[in-house]
């Protein structure tokens, strides 16, 4: 199995919005970050992968299972949503016992270990935990049944940097085993810049790019220039551009080459946020 998740030409329409030909994969052993604005289609894509919704077309294969995911596949998948799904009345340890009755590979010792690592008091009611602790509990539950795939949908939004750093560490630990993979949908691009191997950018229901993070951070660049310089730029070199008040911003795929070719212009690093903004607010240069 070389891919934990393979999505091919996924189509799904709702009124006024739809996923069109979404294709990407999560290679086994990697962390893939899914980025995009609110409403771009990230959550819909994840729901399609998890078989929570019917799809209009395309194929999705999860953990080698070519059709819709089965009950058995779900033993191997840990999911964390952005809000907690557990009853407020249950205590942490009661929740552990409930999960033991639901997952075949539930490891109670591992659960207790994570609870200790995250300082989750076993007697405390779920309802009495802070938002950050609730999230840590969700992640603990997701990890304690020894999944092969972790899927997180905006799971770290609303957490302070210290907690996020702890959680990112947990993910890096998780993929020490090459059989494990992570799909992480997040707005917090700085987190993805730290741990992601690949980044998939979804905008208005389409995949704009699916690249290694290193390509984005070290090869992509932002060229800044004046209008007359902008007119000189080869259309093939432009991925997207935007006219700002005093300059033009152009996203280029190879900043070294661009620096050689357009010596008058300023070429900067691109952060993932900047790349996203240029695609979203700027004009995309279509190829062919």
């Amino acid at each position, binding site marked *: 199995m070389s891919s934990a998740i393979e999505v091919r030409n996924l189509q799904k329409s709702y009124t006024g919005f739809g996923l069109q030909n979404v294709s990407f994969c999560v290679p086994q052993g990697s962390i893939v970050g899914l980025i995009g604005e609110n409403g771009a289609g990230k959550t819909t894509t994840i*729901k399609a992968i*998890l078989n*929570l*919704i*019917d799809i209009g077309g395309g194929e999705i294969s999860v953990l080698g299972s070519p059709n819709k995911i089965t*009950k*058995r596949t*779900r*033993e191997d*998948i840990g*999911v964390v*949503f952005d*809000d*907690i*799904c*557990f*009853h*407020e*009345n*249950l205590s942490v340890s*009661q929740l552990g*016992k*409930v*999960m*033991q*009755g*639901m*997952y*075949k590979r539930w490891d109670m010792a591992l659960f207790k270990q994570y609870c200790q690592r995250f300082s989750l008091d076993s007697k405390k009611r779920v309802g009495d935990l802070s938002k950050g602790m609730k999230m840590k509990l969700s992640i603990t539950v997701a990890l304690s049944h020894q999944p092969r795939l972790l899927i997180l949908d905006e799971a770290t939004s609303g957490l302070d940097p210290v907690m996020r750093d702890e959680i990112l560490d947990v993910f890096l630990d998780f993929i020490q085993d090459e059989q494990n993979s992570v799909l992480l949908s997040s707005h917090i691009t700085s987190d993805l810049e730290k741990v992601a191997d690949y980044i998939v950018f979804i905008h208005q229901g389409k995949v704009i790019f699916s690249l290694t993070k290193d390509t984005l951070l070290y090869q992509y660049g932002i060229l800044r220039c004046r209008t007359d310089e902008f007119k000189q730029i080869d259309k093939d070199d432009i991925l997207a551009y935007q006219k700002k008040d005093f300059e033009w911003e152009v996203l280029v795929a190879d900043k070294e080459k661009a620096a050689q070719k357009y010596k008058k212009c300023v070429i900067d690093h691109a952060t993932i946020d900047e790349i996203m903004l240029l695609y979203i607010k700027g004009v995309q240069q279509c190829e062919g």
Partner: protein
Amino acid sequence: MRGLILKDFYNMLKNIGPTLVTTICVGLLLMVQGNPSLFVIGFAVAGGGVCSTCLRMDETAGWTKFELIAPVSRTTVVVEKYVLLLLLTITGLIVGGVISYVAGTLTGTLDISKFIMYVSVAFSISLISGSLIIFFLFKFGMIKADFFTVLCYAVPVGIFVAALVVVKKLGLNIMVGSPYMTITYFFPLLALVVSLLTAVATVAVYHKKQF
């Protein structure tokens, strides 16, 4: 299914207080009415009601979303609720039945054949109303399902009253020579059939539901 039932059990423990108090009050009121046998109906129906409360709590907590990505089939999710309904009805029946029997014996108002009929009616009303409520909760979700709740209780009670009238009028004395006996034996069978049909319908509805 083990995990699901355990979860409902824990939830019930935490919420049992208000339910118990309500049931006892209703029971006491019924007793004042003069017929201690009605305790059994109160407890059985309350038992069934607890099941729908559990289902509502699942929805409020967001648990239903979790179930969808957990290794439980949608069929199991639905079936577990019906199993819970049965277990709670029987529990209510036993508790209410014992109280009714004791109260009836102490006050000397106990009529065995009527008592047995009340047990069977209690079982049936709880099972039918509970099954219908579960169906509506799965199909429409908590908020819209509330609209149908009264209907769900009215249906079995209506069936019971209508059956009583019909059986008396036609003088049907199958098995043991009394219209009450007819109802005593057939009502629960009807309830089980209704429950089964509703369960199948609920499974079908839930399998199609999109999230």
